[in-house]
């Protein structure tokens, strides 16, 4: 450091924020992802007002009505329930579980990664070893194991998924804080006399945020996938409450009777997951100027 002139050292962190929006908008698939998520969000969030039917309303006379029938845009299921309405209500559950689970991964991952890096010593070693151990379990196994013994609900699903998927966030947070503790621009900020809180808020947080934001977006996608699978197997959200996953529980027989019944929920899952993945990809490119040209 001694031979570097102070003004040569960037006091600001290598700016990730400049032009982030512009770069994100240039990522066409990411923009598409945002639009799709917004549409799915409106459909799910506004379901009580927008849904054409009560999702649980049974109409035996309209069993297996095909899509594009009068009044049944996406048809009706084996009990004559309106598929579009059920999809919208199911979206409320599936998207909520995905986002809530992502928040759990954030809280747990941040706590474990930050405590470890900040405190150091044997606590750090123990926490990081715990992270390593958790990564050894295929998360589907762990999740199913726990799910089978817990009364399923939106909250418990989110908690369980979150508790089996926090490891990546913890590792990122841990690595970022360790790296930033010794980064040149932090030393420069200290040299320039900036108080500690200011360093944390102005320097550490924005720098840590970028990769975490990306990981969180991808975690949301993964959580939606996991929820759908657990619910599909019958250990997640219980009918009659609809989730995209449990709407597929009878998919195997549905395919033979009325294939559309098995297609729409799967498409909804794919669209939601792909959108979050696209957004995550776009964020990664936009937030890290280095990877743009890599």
């Amino acid at each position, binding site marked *: 450091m001694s031979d570097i002139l102070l003004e040569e050292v960037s006091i600001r962190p290598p700016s990730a924020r400049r032009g982030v929006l512009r770069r994100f908008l240039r990522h066409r698939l990411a923009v598409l992802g945002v639009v799709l998520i917004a549409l799915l969000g409106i459909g799910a969030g506004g379901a009580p007002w927008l849904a054409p039917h009560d999702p649980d309303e049974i109409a035996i006379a309209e069993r297996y009505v095909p899509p594009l029938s009068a009044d049944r845009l996406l048809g009706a299921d084996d009990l004559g329930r309106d598929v579009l309405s059920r999809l919208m209500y199911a979206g409320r559950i599936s998207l909520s579980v995905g986002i809530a689970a992502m928040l759990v991964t954030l809280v747990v991952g941040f706590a474990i990664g930050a405590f470890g890096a900040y405190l150091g010593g044997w606590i750090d070693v123990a926490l990081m070893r715990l992270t390593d151990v958790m990564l050894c379990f295929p998360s589907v196994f762990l999740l*199913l194991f726990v799910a089978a013994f817990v009364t399923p609900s939106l909250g418990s699903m989110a908690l369980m998924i979150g508790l089996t998927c926090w490891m990546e966030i913890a590792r990122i947070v841990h690595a970022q804080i360790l790296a930033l503790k010794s980064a040149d621009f932090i030393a420069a900020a200290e040299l320039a006399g900036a108080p500690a809180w200011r360093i944390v808020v102005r320097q550490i947080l924005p720098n840590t945020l970028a990769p975490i934001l990306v990981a969180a977006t991808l975690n949301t996608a993964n959580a939606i996938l996991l929820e759908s699978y657990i619910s599909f197997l019958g250990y997640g959200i219980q009918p009659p409450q609809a989730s995209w996953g449990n709407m597929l529980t009878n998919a195997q027989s549905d395919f033979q009777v009325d294939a559309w019944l098995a297609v729409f929920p799967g498409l909804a899952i794919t669209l939601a997951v792909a959108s979050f993945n696209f957004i995550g990809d776009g964020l990664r490119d936009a937030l890290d100027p280095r990877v743009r040209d890599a």
Partner: protein
Amino acid sequence: MARYLRNRIGQSLLLLLGVSVIGFALMHLAPGGPLAVYTLNPTVTAQDIERVKHQFGLDQPVYVQYVKWAFGLVTGHWGYSFFGGRPVGSIVLERIPATLELMGSSLALALIVGVASGILAAVRRNTIIDYATATAAMLALSLPTFWFGLLGIYVFAQTLGWLPAGGIASTGGGGLLDRLLHLLLPMLVLAFVLVAQWSRYTRSAMLEILTQDYMRTARAKGLGPARVLLGHGLRAALVPLVTLAGLQLPLLVGGALVTETVFSWPGMGLLFVNALGMRDYPVLMAILMVGALVVVLGNLLADIIVALIDPRIKLTHV
């Protein structure tokens, strides 16, 4: 090398110790504990449960139970299934070949297709090929495997009738062709997600390698494009790719579980889901442990291979 190996094996053993602690804790934290199948059964009396508890040693202190359980795990005494009473070890072991067949073939297919498309995307960077590969990979990563499998069954088994809908072979055995036909669809479904990861990862690894000085040297020597790209480029990418193979194992094992349930593939995943329905703890625990063991050993193997490929590892990572 020997020291590096010793270190990595030591780390793996430590991981396995941690895995067993977590597994043990899970078993005891679950509602009803390891005896859920009895406590939830109204015809079983309190005395019966006490008797069984004593029989299984569950009235002893937790750490004694753990040591006994862990010792049993290491020595191959994995307990007995709650249903049928067969030894868990043999129940799980007889399922392993089917799972390995599915995982191995999918991984091989995914490797070939994924690495090839990743290289192509990197070389044809920012062209339509690159964008198409990237978008396809993203979509593949976003497909719910189980739904994709069901879709495949509907199209290729039920509608077209080209392939069997599930199982590992027709009833009464069947020849090699029969087994291959049964394998095809599950293998493709499981490989689909893996291909996406390989493709994306290979692309980014190759993009970095293509800008390296030694690649320019290779071209300056007058080597052919295949030799430059594979002999020099891919050779350098092997290290990150092998590492990815290790890291991908949890996804592979988890994906195998999902695929097996959809295709009634008689492997560990199907066994797990069936055991889950019956709350058959000993079997569940055994599969959880085997799954983690596969991941730990696979990562160890990946690290050893990396050390063999890259002579620098021995120096820097001791």
